[in-house]
């Protein structure tokens, strides 16, 4: 009896250790996004992002929508290596010129790293409702990607979202805050961009 119980204990311990090894293998969270071709070769993509700043992000986003994720396509036709497409139904257009009912947002897939990011990360899934900040894709104006990796605010419990300071606020209040920024003239000091500087010295866009 004693041996049986001791044996059972070791079996349980062994199972726990196996779980531990599996956990340690799968729990690493590299930020690299990997796009793999049919030969198994891939392209590693790493971006240095602008520091999250509510006012700057609001002004700099190409589009801001209050909407619902209606579809996640993990194998769409690739656009500039972006191999994941999120379809968002626009329930309210907060910023931008688009007049359609849905907007396609492209992301680098290969993992579930498409998240809404401010103070914490939450994976996106179909049915998620939130305020989505969108950016033009690198070298792909006309196609949208998530601003900042992305940034935005998902509606969580009781119609509240987490704002840039990490505090829960009513989603309508959050939208009002965004609109208030947009209604205010952008008085940020403007200096020459790298593109403008390169153009001046004859370096083009490269």
């Amino acid at each position: 009896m004693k041996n049986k119980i001791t044996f059972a204990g070791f079996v349980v311990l062994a199972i726990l250790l196996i779980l531990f090894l599996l956990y340690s293998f799968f729990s690493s969270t590299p930020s690299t996004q990997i796009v793999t071709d049919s030969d198994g070769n891939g392209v590693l993509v790493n971006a240095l992002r602008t520091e999250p700043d509510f006012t700057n992000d609001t002004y700099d986003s190409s589009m801001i929508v209050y909407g619902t994720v209606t579809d996640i396509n993990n194998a769409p036709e690739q656009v500039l290596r972006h191999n994941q497409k999120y379809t968002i139904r626009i329930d309210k257009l907060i910023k931008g010129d688009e007049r359609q009912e849905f907007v396609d947002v492209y992301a680098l897939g290969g993992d579930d790293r498409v998240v809404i990011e401010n103070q914490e990360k939450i994976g996106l899934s179909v049915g998620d409702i939130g305020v989505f900040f969108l950016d033009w894709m690198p070298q792909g104006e006309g196609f949208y990607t998530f601003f900042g990796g992305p940034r935005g605010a998902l509606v969580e419990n009781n119609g509240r979202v987490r704002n840039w300071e990490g505090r829960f606020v009513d989603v309508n209040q959050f939208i009002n805050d965004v609109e208030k920024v947009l209604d205010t003239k952008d008085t940020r000091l403007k200096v020459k961009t790298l593109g403008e500087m390169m153009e001046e010295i004859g370096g083009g866009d490269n």
Partner: protein
Amino acid sequence: MYKTAKFSFLRSVLLCVLGLMIMLSFPLLKSVEAYVASGYYRSSNSVSFYLNSAFVTLGWQGAFNNARNSWNSAGSAFSFYQIGTTGRFPSLLYSGTTDGYNDIGGMSLGMSYVALTESQTSGWQIIETDTAYNTNHPFSTSPSSLYFDVESVAAHELGHWLHLDETQSWRCVINKPTMCPSLAKGNTDLRSLETDDINGINYIY
């Protein structure tokens, strides 16, 4: 007999608890390793690159030398070399193709990117890397709240050439490793390598 069985049962429970403790403590142990390595690597301990000629005209050469030297003197066997300047577009980013050159240049990247690095791999080996600074943003070698710091961006992107990943955001609250994932205008914290970064390069190479 009953007591012995009870004792063995308790011992088994203790063993289970011990196993559980090991499992639960692992995330804490992992958090000590602040750098994140993707698992990809270069086949040699050096990499040569070309810098866009416009960057040199803009007076950025010194900033790139500093960033390169920071990694070269981190105690590992790895070295960055700059071969020369170029007018080429960073092909991986521009056209999605390899051209056999590791280039650093500029490119329009929306607004939320400060810079972007792409590496072509074959298996676990990196065979080509290109970096683009976002031409939609202003950059300067002199710290100012209006510009992104050229050297900080260079140091961070060269870290990706190694292939170090972004440090998780919450770690950047305590100190500012070069591999922190975001940068504000005027901030020069990413210029200097922190222990996390140095441990990272020494782990890979």
